[in-house]
């Protein structure tokens, strides 16, 4: 039996580790501006606890060259910073998807077996 606190910590770590790929996946479909991206992630249940913590991640992804940003005029106010995937970001996402499929299948194989 895993203690509650330990389990929370594990889930937090899993979220942390996978959040950046969720960001990349969201940007794979279309470019988005920061607010829109953050709201989309925050609305997914259990993904992020606070919207503000996504911005450091975006900043890091930009520094690592996985996403790039451009300023675009907005009809509603000041220009917005739009994020989009770079080639390196796309490659990182593809790589993660393959590993994730394998990993998820392997875990499901054991965890879901009893349920069937």
């Amino acid at each position, binding site marked *: 039996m895993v203690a509650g606190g330990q389990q929370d910590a594990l889930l937090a770590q899993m979220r942390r580790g996978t959040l950046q790929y969720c960001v990349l996946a969201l940007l794979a479909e279309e470019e988005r501006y920061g607010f829109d991206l953050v709201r989309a992630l925050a609305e997914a249940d259990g993904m992020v*606890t606070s*919207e*503000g*913590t996504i911005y*450091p*991640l975006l*900043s*890091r992804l930009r520094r690592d060259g996985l996403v790039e940003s451009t300023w675009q005029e907005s009809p509603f106010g000041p220009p917005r910073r739009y994020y989009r995937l770079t080639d390196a970001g796309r490659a990182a996402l593809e790589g993660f998807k393959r590993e994730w499929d394998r990993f998820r299948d392997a875990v499901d194989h054991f965890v879901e077996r009893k349920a069937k």
Partner: protein
Amino acid sequence: MNTTADHLVDDYLKRLRKELAGLPRERRRELEQEISEHIAEARAMLAAENEAEIRTLLDRIGEPADIAAEARERFGVQRKRSGALEVVALVLLLIGGVVIPVVGWLVGVVLLWVSEAWSARDKLIGTLVVPGGLLLPLSLALFAGSSEACVETRAGTDCTGGGTSVLPFALFVVLLVAPLATTVYLARRMRRGAPMLTT
């Protein structure tokens, strides 16, 4: 115009700025900008802007301390308690000029400005209050001591008496207390989050 809302947002951004203090400048600026834009966008979407709505909005964004912690982790910046550099800087600023006249204090100034534990304003205070640290007041004390000796040995002649030494004495006290006060001030203002890049 909604001043309560503006006040809440300003207060939040101020706290955020303070919490992000240990991060590299351009990262800090970027985060501050993005989050203040986020707040502006979120506010624009509110049906009615009242205190409760603004508080809810800021709660969703999260505690500035949490955002800063996340940023430090993402950028591999570690929170470090008072560094050796900062302690040496403070000691040299205070007594460096006494041990090695002038030069010791100058080294202290260099360390003060090299350190990222203080803001530019604090560094300016550390440099200007008082140049030389305790060198000046101690020199004055020495000077005053010799003039006092002069009074004793040649009492009644040209040497200055007690009446005229009130002003120099007040100056002496100020010069003595000011560097000590600055040291205490800088020690208290020292950021616990002095950046140390690990990646």
